[in-house]
Protein backbone atom coordinates (compact mmCIF):
# COMPACT_ATOMS: atom_id res chain seq x y z
CA UNK A 1 0.00 0.00 0.00
CA UNK A 2 2.27 2.75 -1.20
CA UNK A 3 1.70 6.38 -0.50
CA UNK A 4 3.35 8.78 -2.97
CA UNK A 5 4.19 12.24 -1.74
CA UNK A 6 3.30 14.90 -4.31
CA UNK A 7 3.00 18.67 -4.23
CA UNK A 8 -0.80 18.27 -3.80
CA UNK A 9 -0.30 16.07 -0.74
CA UNK A 10 -0.03 12.29 -0.37
CA UNK A 11 -1.50 10.09 -3.14
CA UNK A 12 -2.62 6.59 -2.26
CA UNK A 13 -2.43 3.63 -4.67
CA UNK A 14 -3.31 -0.02 -4.02
CA UNK A 15 -0.01 -1.22 -5.58
CA UNK A 16 3.26 0.42 -6.39
CA UNK A 17 4.78 0.47 -9.90
CA UNK A 18 6.83 -2.72 -9.36
CA UNK A 19 3.87 -4.76 -8.18
CA UNK A 20 1.72 -3.50 -11.07
CA UNK A 21 4.38 -4.56 -13.59
CA UNK A 22 4.68 -7.98 -11.96
CA UNK A 23 0.93 -8.50 -12.19
CA UNK A 24 0.94 -7.55 -15.90
CA UNK A 25 3.69 -10.05 -16.65
CA UNK A 26 1.84 -12.65 -14.63
CA UNK A 27 -1.25 -12.17 -16.80
CA UNK A 28 0.80 -12.21 -20.00
CA UNK A 29 2.43 -15.46 -18.97
CA UNK A 30 -0.93 -17.00 -18.10
CA UNK A 31 -2.49 -16.07 -21.44
CA UNK A 32 0.55 -17.43 -23.32
CA UNK A 33 0.29 -20.77 -21.51
CA UNK A 34 -3.43 -20.91 -22.27
CA UNK A 35 -2.83 -20.34 -26.00
CA UNK A 36 -0.09 -22.95 -26.11
CA UNK A 37 -2.33 -25.54 -24.41
CA UNK A 38 -5.13 -24.69 -26.81
CA UNK A 39 -2.76 -25.37 -29.70
CA UNK A 40 -1.75 -28.76 -28.23
CA UNK A 41 -5.35 -29.84 -27.68
CA UNK A 42 -6.35 -28.65 -31.13
CA UNK A 43 -3.59 -30.76 -32.74
CA UNK A 44 -4.73 -33.85 -30.87
CA UNK A 45 -8.40 -33.42 -31.82
CA UNK A 46 -10.04 -34.93 -34.87
CA UNK A 47 -12.01 -31.87 -35.78
CA UNK A 48 -14.18 -33.71 -38.27
CA UNK A 49 -15.91 -35.54 -35.41
CA UNK A 50 -16.41 -32.28 -33.54
CA UNK A 51 -17.97 -30.49 -36.52
CA UNK A 52 -20.15 -33.55 -37.08
CA UNK A 53 -21.20 -33.74 -33.40
CA UNK A 54 -24.36 -31.60 -33.66
CA UNK A 55 -25.69 -33.82 -36.45
CA UNK A 56 -25.02 -36.99 -34.49
CA UNK A 57 -26.51 -35.52 -31.33
CA UNK A 58 -29.57 -34.38 -33.28
CA UNK A 59 -29.87 -37.85 -34.81
CA UNK A 60 -29.73 -39.59 -31.41
CA UNK A 61 -32.17 -37.09 -29.95
CA UNK A 62 -34.53 -37.80 -32.83
CA UNK A 63 -34.32 -41.54 -32.24
CA UNK A 64 -34.67 -41.12 -28.46
CA UNK A 65 -37.92 -39.12 -28.62
CA UNK A 66 -40.56 -39.81 -27.70
CA UNK A 67 -39.44 -41.96 -24.73
CA UNK A 68 -40.90 -45.45 -24.74
CA UNK A 69 -43.36 -44.94 -21.86
CA UNK A 70 -44.48 -48.57 -21.87
CA UNK A 71 -40.96 -49.57 -20.77
CA UNK A 72 -41.77 -47.97 -17.40
CA UNK A 73 -43.26 -51.29 -16.22
CA UNK A 74 -39.73 -52.75 -16.29
CA UNK A 75 -38.29 -49.82 -14.34
CA UNK A 76 -40.35 -49.71 -11.10
CA UNK A 77 -38.46 -52.58 -9.57
CA UNK A 78 -34.91 -51.35 -10.50
CA UNK A 79 -35.60 -47.81 -9.26
CA UNK A 80 -36.86 -49.27 -5.97
CA UNK A 81 -33.61 -51.28 -5.79
CA UNK A 82 -31.63 -48.10 -6.44
CA UNK A 83 -33.40 -46.28 -3.60
CA UNK A 84 -32.75 -49.21 -1.27
CA UNK A 85 -29.08 -49.36 -2.19
CA UNK A 86 -28.70 -45.67 -1.40
CA UNK A 87 -30.69 -45.76 1.85
CA UNK A 88 -29.30 -49.00 3.31
CA UNK A 89 -25.80 -48.06 2.16
CA UNK A 90 -26.07 -44.70 3.93
CA UNK A 91 -27.35 -46.28 7.15
CA UNK A 92 -24.53 -48.83 7.09
CA UNK A 93 -21.99 -46.09 6.47
CA UNK A 94 -23.30 -43.99 9.37
CA UNK A 95 -23.18 -46.94 11.80
CA UNK A 96 -19.51 -47.43 10.95
CA UNK A 97 -18.66 -43.74 10.63
CA UNK A 98 -19.79 -42.67 14.12
CA UNK A 99 -17.22 -44.70 16.10
CA UNK A 100 -14.50 -43.86 13.57
CA UNK A 101 -15.30 -40.15 13.89
CA UNK A 102 -15.01 -40.32 17.69
CA UNK A 103 -11.68 -42.14 17.35
CA UNK A 104 -10.43 -39.57 14.84
CA UNK A 105 -11.47 -36.37 16.62
CA UNK A 106 -8.59 -34.87 18.57
CA UNK A 107 -10.68 -34.16 21.66
CA UNK A 108 -12.29 -37.61 21.97
CA UNK A 109 -9.70 -40.05 20.62
CA UNK A 110 -8.28 -42.42 23.24
CA UNK A 111 -4.81 -42.13 21.72
CA UNK A 112 -3.48 -39.42 19.42
CA UNK A 113 -0.39 -41.46 18.61
CA UNK A 114 -1.84 -44.83 17.57
CA UNK A 115 -5.61 -44.90 17.18
CA UNK A 116 -6.12 -41.49 15.58
CA UNK A 117 -3.81 -42.19 12.60
CA UNK A 118 -5.57 -45.52 12.01
CA UNK A 119 -8.98 -43.82 12.03
CA UNK A 120 -7.71 -41.13 9.67
CA UNK A 121 -6.27 -43.80 7.37
CA UNK A 122 -9.66 -45.55 7.19
CA UNK A 123 -11.28 -42.21 6.35
CA UNK A 124 -8.80 -41.42 3.58
CA UNK A 125 -8.77 -44.94 2.15
CA UNK A 126 -12.55 -45.26 1.87
CA UNK A 127 -12.95 -41.75 0.48
CA UNK A 128 -10.27 -41.99 -2.16
CA UNK A 129 -11.76 -44.95 -4.05
CA UNK A 130 -14.83 -44.33 -6.20
CA UNK A 131 -17.95 -46.34 -5.45
CA UNK A 132 -17.90 -47.84 -8.98
CA UNK A 133 -14.47 -49.30 -8.23
CA UNK A 134 -15.62 -50.55 -4.84
CA UNK A 135 -18.56 -52.18 -6.64
CA UNK A 136 -16.26 -53.87 -9.17
CA UNK A 137 -14.13 -55.25 -6.33
CA UNK A 138 -17.12 -56.39 -4.31
CA UNK A 139 -18.80 -58.07 -7.29
CA UNK A 140 -15.67 -60.14 -7.65
CA UNK A 141 -15.83 -61.04 -3.95
CA UNK A 142 -19.55 -61.49 -3.18
CA UNK A 143 -21.00 -61.77 -6.66
CA UNK A 144 -23.19 -59.34 -8.64
CA UNK A 145 -26.43 -57.92 -7.29
CA UNK A 146 -27.98 -55.40 -4.96
CA UNK A 147 -26.00 -56.53 -1.90
CA UNK A 148 -22.67 -55.68 -3.55
CA UNK A 149 -24.12 -52.26 -4.39
CA UNK A 150 -25.17 -51.61 -0.80
CA UNK A 151 -21.75 -52.54 0.56
CA UNK A 152 -19.98 -50.46 -2.11
CA UNK A 153 -22.07 -47.38 -1.24
CA UNK A 154 -21.58 -47.99 2.49
CA UNK A 155 -17.79 -48.28 2.25
CA UNK A 156 -17.50 -45.29 -0.05
CA UNK A 157 -19.55 -43.13 2.34
CA UNK A 158 -17.71 -44.01 5.58
CA UNK A 159 -14.87 -41.60 4.91
CA UNK A 160 -17.14 -38.74 3.88
CA UNK A 161 -19.45 -39.08 6.89
CA UNK A 162 -16.67 -39.75 9.41
CA UNK A 163 -14.62 -36.79 8.19
CA UNK A 164 -17.44 -34.26 8.44
CA UNK A 165 -18.55 -35.71 11.77
CA UNK A 166 -15.13 -35.64 13.38
CA UNK A 167 -14.70 -32.05 12.28
CA UNK A 168 -18.02 -31.28 13.99
CA UNK A 169 -16.80 -33.06 17.13
CA UNK A 170 -13.61 -31.02 17.16
CA UNK A 171 -15.59 -27.80 16.91
CA UNK A 172 -17.85 -28.36 19.93
CA UNK A 173 -17.98 -25.92 22.81
CA UNK A 174 -15.52 -27.44 25.29
CA UNK A 175 -16.95 -25.57 28.29
CA UNK A 176 -20.15 -27.66 28.12
CA UNK A 177 -18.02 -30.80 28.24
CA UNK A 178 -16.08 -29.35 31.16
CA UNK A 179 -19.30 -28.61 33.03
CA UNK A 180 -20.61 -32.15 32.62
CA UNK A 181 -17.22 -33.57 33.66
CA UNK A 182 -17.24 -31.41 36.78
CA UNK A 183 -20.43 -33.12 38.02
CA UNK A 184 -18.49 -36.37 38.40
CA UNK A 185 -19.90 -37.95 35.21
CA UNK A 186 -18.10 -40.93 33.68
CA UNK A 187 -16.41 -40.80 30.27
CA UNK A 188 -19.45 -42.29 28.49
CA UNK A 189 -21.88 -40.06 30.34
CA UNK A 190 -19.84 -37.02 29.33
CA UNK A 191 -20.09 -38.21 25.74
CA UNK A 192 -23.87 -38.63 25.89
CA UNK A 193 -24.55 -35.35 27.72
CA UNK A 194 -21.70 -33.05 26.74
CA UNK A 195 -20.85 -34.04 23.16
CA UNK A 196 -23.77 -35.83 21.47
CA UNK A 197 -26.33 -33.01 21.89
CA UNK A 198 -23.85 -30.60 20.35
CA UNK A 199 -23.18 -32.67 17.23
CA UNK A 200 -26.76 -33.88 16.58
CA UNK A 201 -27.62 -31.14 14.03
CA UNK A 202 -24.37 -31.80 12.16
CA UNK A 203 -25.03 -35.54 12.22
CA UNK A 204 -28.53 -35.20 10.80
CA UNK A 205 -27.31 -32.80 8.12
CA UNK A 206 -24.48 -35.12 7.09
CA UNK A 207 -26.80 -38.14 6.97
CA UNK A 208 -29.31 -36.52 4.61
CA UNK A 209 -26.63 -34.89 2.50
CA UNK A 210 -24.84 -38.21 1.98
CA UNK A 211 -28.13 -40.01 1.27
CA UNK A 212 -28.82 -37.44 -1.43
CA UNK A 213 -25.37 -38.02 -2.99
CA UNK A 214 -25.80 -41.80 -2.72
CA UNK A 215 -29.05 -41.74 -4.72
CA UNK A 216 -27.04 -40.31 -7.60
CA UNK A 217 -24.13 -42.69 -7.11
CA UNK A 218 -26.35 -45.78 -6.93
CA UNK A 219 -28.02 -45.01 -10.26
CA UNK A 220 -24.76 -45.83 -12.05
CA UNK A 221 -23.77 -48.87 -9.97
CA UNK A 222 -25.80 -51.11 -12.28
CA UNK A 223 -23.35 -50.29 -15.11
CA UNK A 224 -20.91 -52.72 -13.49
CA UNK A 225 -23.60 -55.16 -12.38
CA UNK A 226 -24.19 -54.09 -8.81
CA UNK A 227 -27.99 -53.82 -9.13
CA UNK A 228 -30.38 -50.93 -9.57
CA UNK A 229 -31.50 -48.92 -12.56
CA UNK A 230 -28.01 -48.72 -14.08
CA UNK A 231 -28.41 -52.33 -15.19
CA UNK A 232 -31.35 -51.37 -17.45
CA UNK A 233 -29.46 -48.31 -18.66
CA UNK A 234 -26.52 -50.41 -19.77
CA UNK A 235 -28.71 -53.00 -21.46
CA UNK A 236 -30.59 -50.29 -23.35
CA UNK A 237 -27.38 -48.53 -24.39
CA UNK A 238 -25.87 -51.79 -25.65
CA UNK A 239 -28.90 -52.54 -27.84
CA UNK A 240 -29.08 -48.91 -29.03
CA UNK A 241 -32.63 -48.73 -27.68
CA UNK A 242 -32.61 -44.92 -27.51
CA UNK A 243 -36.29 -44.43 -26.54
CA UNK A 244 -35.64 -46.62 -23.47
CA UNK A 245 -32.44 -44.73 -22.65
CA UNK A 246 -34.27 -41.42 -22.67
CA UNK A 247 -36.98 -42.80 -20.37
CA UNK A 248 -34.37 -44.15 -17.93
CA UNK A 249 -32.56 -40.80 -17.89
CA UNK A 250 -35.88 -39.08 -17.13
CA UNK A 251 -36.56 -41.51 -14.27
CA UNK A 252 -33.08 -40.93 -12.81
CA UNK A 253 -33.57 -37.18 -13.10
CA UNK A 254 -36.90 -37.44 -11.27
CA UNK A 255 -35.36 -39.58 -8.51
CA UNK A 256 -32.50 -37.13 -8.01
CA UNK A 257 -34.80 -34.10 -7.98
CA UNK A 258 -37.05 -35.74 -5.40
CA UNK A 259 -34.11 -36.74 -3.19
CA UNK A 260 -32.72 -33.19 -3.37
CA UNK A 261 -36.10 -31.83 -2.37
CA UNK A 262 -36.39 -34.25 0.56
CA UNK A 263 -32.88 -33.54 1.84
CA UNK A 264 -33.36 -29.77 1.53
CA UNK A 265 -36.61 -30.04 3.51
CA UNK A 266 -35.03 -32.19 6.22
CA UNK A 267 -31.96 -29.97 6.54
CA UNK A 268 -34.18 -26.90 6.70
CA UNK A 269 -36.18 -28.49 9.50
CA UNK A 270 -33.04 -29.28 11.52
CA UNK A 271 -31.22 -25.97 11.16
Amino acid at each position, binding site marked *: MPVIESSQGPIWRLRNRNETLKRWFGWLFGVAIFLWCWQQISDATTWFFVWDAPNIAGDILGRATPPRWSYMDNLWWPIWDTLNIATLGTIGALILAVPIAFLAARNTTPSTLFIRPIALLIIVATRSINSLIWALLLIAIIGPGVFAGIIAIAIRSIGFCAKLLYEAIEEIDQ*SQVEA*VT*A*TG*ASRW*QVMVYGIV*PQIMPAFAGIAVFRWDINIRESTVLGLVGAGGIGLQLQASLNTLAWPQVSLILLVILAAVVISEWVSAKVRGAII
Partner: protein
Amino acid sequence: MLRLDALTKTYKTGDQALKAVTLDVPAGQVLALIGPSGAGKSTLIRCINRLVPPTSGKVTLADVDITSLGAGALRRERRRMGMIFQEYALVERLTVMENVLSGRLGYVGFWRALTRRFPQKDVDEAFRLLDRVGLLHMADKRADQLSGGQRQRVGICRALIQDPALLLVDEPTASLDPKTSRQIMRLICELCAERGLAAIINIHDVALAQMFVARVIGLRFGEIVYDGPPDGLTPETLNEIYGEEDWEATIEKIDEDDTAEAAE
Protein backbone atom coordinates in the same frame (compact mmCIF):
# COMPACT_ATOMS: atom_id res chain seq x y z
CA MET B 1 -12.77 -28.43 55.37
CA LEU B 2 -10.92 -27.59 52.14
CA ARG B 3 -7.20 -27.24 52.36
CA LEU B 4 -4.75 -26.29 49.62
CA ASP B 5 -1.16 -27.12 50.44
CA ALA B 6 1.60 -25.47 48.39
CA LEU B 7 -0.58 -25.94 45.29
CA THR B 8 1.48 -25.23 42.18
CA LYS B 9 0.54 -25.27 38.53
CA THR B 10 3.03 -24.80 35.74
CA TYR B 11 1.58 -24.97 32.20
CA LYS B 12 3.43 -26.72 29.39
CA THR B 13 4.31 -23.29 28.00
CA GLY B 14 6.31 -22.67 31.18
CA ASP B 15 3.85 -20.14 32.60
CA GLN B 16 3.62 -20.57 36.33
CA ALA B 17 -0.08 -19.93 37.03
CA LEU B 18 0.02 -20.87 40.72
CA LYS B 19 3.04 -20.53 42.99
CA ALA B 20 2.70 -22.73 46.07
CA VAL B 21 -0.73 -21.45 47.13
CA THR B 22 -1.71 -22.46 50.64
CA LEU B 23 -5.27 -21.81 51.75
CA ASP B 24 -7.71 -23.08 54.36
CA VAL B 25 -11.45 -22.83 53.82
CA PRO B 26 -13.58 -23.78 56.84
CA ALA B 27 -16.96 -25.44 56.29
CA GLY B 28 -19.70 -23.00 55.31
CA GLN B 29 -17.41 -20.08 54.48
CA VAL B 30 -18.04 -18.10 51.32
CA LEU B 31 -14.93 -16.41 50.06
CA ALA B 32 -14.23 -14.26 47.05
CA LEU B 33 -11.11 -14.64 44.98
CA ILE B 34 -10.14 -11.38 43.33
CA GLY B 35 -7.22 -10.45 41.16
CA PRO B 36 -6.31 -9.23 37.67
CA SER B 37 -6.93 -11.36 34.57
CA GLY B 38 -4.23 -14.00 34.33
CA ALA B 39 -3.55 -14.03 38.08
CA GLY B 40 -4.50 -17.71 38.22
CA LYS B 41 -8.02 -17.49 39.68
CA SER B 42 -9.59 -19.87 37.16
CA THR B 43 -6.61 -22.21 37.35
CA LEU B 44 -6.91 -22.28 41.15
CA ILE B 45 -10.52 -23.46 41.22
CA ARG B 46 -9.98 -25.86 38.31
CA CYS B 47 -7.05 -27.42 40.18
CA ILE B 48 -9.35 -28.14 43.11
CA ASN B 49 -11.63 -30.46 41.11
CA ARG B 50 -8.76 -31.41 38.79
CA LEU B 51 -10.33 -30.18 35.57
CA VAL B 52 -6.79 -28.83 35.37
CA PRO B 53 -4.28 -31.25 36.89
CA PRO B 54 -2.04 -29.47 39.43
CA THR B 55 1.72 -29.82 38.96
CA SER B 56 2.50 -30.27 42.64
CA GLY B 57 1.03 -29.62 46.06
CA LYS B 58 -2.01 -31.09 47.75
CA VAL B 59 -5.75 -30.47 47.78
CA THR B 60 -7.63 -32.01 50.70
CA LEU B 61 -11.42 -31.97 50.90
CA ALA B 62 -12.79 -33.29 54.21
CA ASP B 63 -9.64 -35.35 54.80
CA VAL B 64 -9.62 -36.85 51.30
CA ASP B 65 -6.50 -36.07 49.27
CA ILE B 66 -7.96 -35.14 45.89
CA THR B 67 -4.61 -34.88 44.11
CA SER B 68 -3.74 -38.55 44.53
CA LEU B 69 -7.10 -40.08 43.55
CA GLY B 70 -7.58 -42.52 40.66
CA ALA B 71 -10.14 -41.81 37.92
CA GLY B 72 -13.11 -43.54 39.62
CA ALA B 73 -12.47 -42.08 43.05
CA LEU B 74 -11.94 -38.64 41.51
CA ARG B 75 -15.39 -38.83 39.91
CA ARG B 76 -16.92 -39.71 43.28
CA GLU B 77 -15.18 -36.75 44.94
CA ARG B 78 -16.22 -34.39 42.13
CA ARG B 79 -19.82 -35.00 43.16
CA ARG B 80 -19.04 -33.17 46.40
CA MET B 81 -17.84 -30.08 44.48
CA GLY B 82 -20.44 -28.19 42.48
CA MET B 83 -19.13 -25.87 39.80
CA ILE B 84 -20.73 -22.74 38.33
CA PHE B 85 -19.29 -21.23 35.15
CA GLN B 86 -18.80 -17.80 33.65
CA GLU B 87 -20.62 -18.45 30.36
CA TYR B 88 -23.07 -20.75 32.19
CA ALA B 89 -21.76 -23.80 30.25
CA LEU B 90 -25.23 -25.29 30.01
CA VAL B 91 -25.68 -27.97 27.36
CA GLU B 92 -27.49 -25.62 24.99
CA ARG B 93 -29.53 -28.17 23.08
CA LEU B 94 -30.88 -29.99 26.12
CA THR B 95 -33.88 -28.86 28.15
CA VAL B 96 -33.58 -26.99 31.43
CA MET B 97 -34.67 -30.13 33.28
CA GLU B 98 -32.06 -32.30 31.56
CA ASN B 99 -29.42 -29.72 32.40
CA VAL B 100 -30.39 -29.68 36.07
CA LEU B 101 -30.55 -33.47 36.24
CA SER B 102 -27.12 -33.73 34.61
CA GLY B 103 -25.85 -32.67 38.04
CA ARG B 104 -26.84 -36.17 39.21
CA LEU B 105 -24.74 -37.96 36.57
CA GLY B 106 -22.14 -38.89 39.15
CA TYR B 107 -24.82 -40.80 41.09
CA VAL B 108 -26.60 -42.73 38.31
CA GLY B 109 -25.45 -45.41 35.88
CA PHE B 110 -24.87 -45.00 32.17
CA TRP B 111 -28.20 -46.46 30.95
CA ARG B 112 -30.29 -44.37 33.31
CA ALA B 113 -28.40 -41.33 32.07
CA LEU B 114 -28.80 -42.30 28.41
CA THR B 115 -32.54 -43.00 28.70
CA ARG B 116 -33.05 -40.00 31.05
CA ARG B 117 -34.70 -42.24 33.66
CA PHE B 118 -33.42 -40.52 36.78
CA PRO B 119 -34.68 -41.68 40.21
CA GLN B 120 -37.91 -39.94 41.23
CA LYS B 121 -36.23 -38.36 44.25
CA ASP B 122 -33.72 -36.64 41.94
CA VAL B 123 -36.56 -35.35 39.77
CA ASP B 124 -38.40 -34.07 42.87
CA GLU B 125 -35.26 -32.31 44.01
CA ALA B 126 -34.77 -30.79 40.54
CA PHE B 127 -38.32 -29.36 40.63
CA ARG B 128 -37.74 -28.05 44.14
CA LEU B 129 -34.52 -26.31 43.12
CA LEU B 130 -36.03 -24.83 39.96
CA ASP B 131 -38.89 -23.52 42.11
CA ARG B 132 -36.37 -22.06 44.56
CA VAL B 133 -34.63 -20.05 41.80
CA GLY B 134 -37.96 -19.11 40.21
CA LEU B 135 -37.66 -21.12 37.00
CA LEU B 136 -40.24 -23.86 37.56
CA HIS B 137 -42.25 -22.75 34.52
CA MET B 138 -39.12 -23.03 32.32
CA ALA B 139 -38.38 -26.68 33.13
CA ASP B 140 -39.35 -27.88 29.66
CA LYS B 141 -37.70 -25.07 27.66
CA ARG B 142 -34.46 -25.65 25.80
CA ALA B 143 -31.49 -24.03 27.54
CA ASP B 144 -30.65 -21.81 24.54
CA GLN B 145 -34.05 -20.11 24.82
CA LEU B 146 -33.20 -18.64 28.24
CA SER B 147 -31.73 -15.25 29.07
CA GLY B 148 -28.29 -14.94 30.68
CA GLY B 149 -29.60 -14.57 34.22
CA GLN B 150 -31.99 -17.49 33.79
CA ARG B 151 -29.21 -19.68 32.41
CA GLN B 152 -26.99 -18.91 35.35
CA ARG B 153 -29.84 -19.91 37.69
CA VAL B 154 -30.06 -23.25 35.88
CA GLY B 155 -26.28 -23.55 36.29
CA ILE B 156 -26.73 -22.97 40.02
CA CYS B 157 -29.41 -25.67 40.20
CA ARG B 158 -27.14 -28.10 38.35
CA ALA B 159 -24.37 -27.48 40.88
CA LEU B 160 -26.67 -27.74 43.90
CA ILE B 161 -28.44 -30.95 42.87
CA GLN B 162 -25.07 -32.66 43.22
CA ASP B 163 -25.57 -32.17 46.96
CA PRO B 164 -22.08 -30.71 47.25
CA ALA B 165 -20.11 -29.60 50.29
CA LEU B 166 -18.27 -26.96 48.29
CA LEU B 167 -19.16 -24.67 45.42
CA LEU B 168 -16.50 -23.61 42.92
CA VAL B 169 -17.79 -20.52 41.18
CA ASP B 170 -15.89 -19.11 38.19
CA GLU B 171 -16.83 -15.50 37.35
CA PRO B 172 -20.57 -16.05 37.83
CA THR B 173 -21.50 -12.50 36.88
CA ALA B 174 -18.98 -11.62 34.17
CA SER B 175 -21.51 -11.88 31.34
CA LEU B 176 -24.48 -10.39 33.20
CA ASP B 177 -25.86 -6.88 33.60
CA PRO B 178 -25.28 -5.11 36.95
CA LYS B 179 -28.72 -5.81 38.40
CA THR B 180 -28.77 -9.47 37.39
CA SER B 181 -25.20 -9.79 38.68
CA ARG B 182 -26.31 -8.71 42.13
CA GLN B 183 -29.32 -11.01 42.06
CA ILE B 184 -27.16 -13.98 41.08
CA MET B 185 -24.53 -13.19 43.73
CA ARG B 186 -27.25 -12.78 46.34
CA LEU B 187 -28.83 -16.07 45.28
CA ILE B 188 -25.54 -17.96 45.47
CA CYS B 189 -24.74 -16.55 48.91
CA GLU B 190 -28.25 -17.21 50.23
CA LEU B 191 -28.20 -20.79 49.01
CA CYS B 192 -24.76 -21.34 50.56
CA ALA B 193 -26.06 -20.03 53.87
CA GLU B 194 -29.23 -22.18 53.67
CA ARG B 195 -27.24 -25.33 53.01
CA GLY B 196 -24.10 -24.53 54.95
CA LEU B 197 -21.95 -24.75 51.82
CA ALA B 198 -18.48 -23.37 51.50
CA ALA B 199 -17.83 -21.51 48.27
CA ILE B 200 -14.91 -20.05 46.39
CA ILE B 201 -16.14 -17.32 44.06
CA ASN B 202 -13.84 -15.90 41.41
CA ILE B 203 -14.98 -12.40 40.73
CA HIS B 204 -13.77 -9.31 38.88
CA ASP B 205 -16.16 -6.86 40.46
CA VAL B 206 -14.50 -5.84 43.74
CA ALA B 207 -17.51 -3.83 44.92
CA LEU B 208 -19.84 -6.77 44.34
CA ALA B 209 -17.51 -9.10 46.22
CA GLN B 210 -17.32 -6.72 49.18
CA MET B 211 -21.10 -6.54 49.29
CA PHE B 212 -21.71 -10.26 49.70
CA VAL B 213 -18.79 -12.22 51.13
CA ALA B 214 -17.12 -12.55 54.52
CA ARG B 215 -13.58 -13.14 53.30
CA VAL B 216 -11.60 -11.90 50.34
CA ILE B 217 -8.46 -13.46 48.89
CA GLY B 218 -6.37 -11.33 46.56
CA LEU B 219 -4.34 -13.23 44.00
CA ARG B 220 -1.54 -11.72 41.96
CA PHE B 221 0.81 -13.62 39.61
CA GLY B 222 -0.25 -16.90 41.23
CA GLU B 223 0.42 -15.78 44.79
CA ILE B 224 -1.91 -14.77 47.59
CA VAL B 225 -1.23 -11.12 48.41
CA TYR B 226 -4.31 -10.39 50.50
CA ASP B 227 -6.38 -12.55 52.82
CA GLY B 228 -8.83 -10.79 55.07
CA PRO B 229 -12.26 -9.24 55.55
CA PRO B 230 -13.80 -7.25 52.69
CA ASP B 231 -13.61 -3.91 54.55
CA GLY B 232 -9.86 -4.40 54.91
CA LEU B 233 -9.51 -3.69 51.19
CA THR B 234 -7.90 -0.25 51.10
CA PRO B 235 -6.55 1.58 48.06
CA GLU B 236 -3.12 0.34 49.14
CA THR B 237 -4.13 -3.33 49.15
CA LEU B 238 -5.94 -2.97 45.83
CA ASN B 239 -2.78 -1.38 44.44
CA GLU B 240 -0.90 -4.42 45.58
CA ILE B 241 -3.39 -6.82 43.97
CA TYR B 242 -4.13 -5.03 40.70
CA GLY B 243 -1.36 -2.46 40.32
CA GLU B 244 -1.43 1.35 40.52
CA GLU B 245 -4.84 2.90 39.94
CA ASP B 246 -7.10 5.44 41.58
CA TRP B 247 -9.32 3.30 43.79
CA GLU B 248 -11.19 5.99 45.72
CA ALA B 249 -14.14 5.91 43.28
CA THR B 250 -14.49 2.13 43.49
CA ILE B 251 -14.49 2.03 47.24
CA GLU B 252 -16.73 5.05 47.71
CA LYS B 253 -19.21 3.65 45.24
CA ILE B 254 -19.68 0.59 47.42
CA ASP B 255 -20.70 2.68 50.37
CA GLU B 256 -23.26 4.57 48.31
CA ASP B 257 -24.57 1.31 46.90
CA ASP B 258 -24.85 -0.16 50.34
CA THR B 259 -26.88 2.76 51.66
CA ALA B 260 -29.05 2.69 48.55
CA GLU B 261 -29.54 -1.03 49.07
CA ALA B 262 -30.48 -0.49 52.71
CA ALA B 263 -32.92 2.28 51.82
CA GLU B 264 -34.78 0.06 49.34
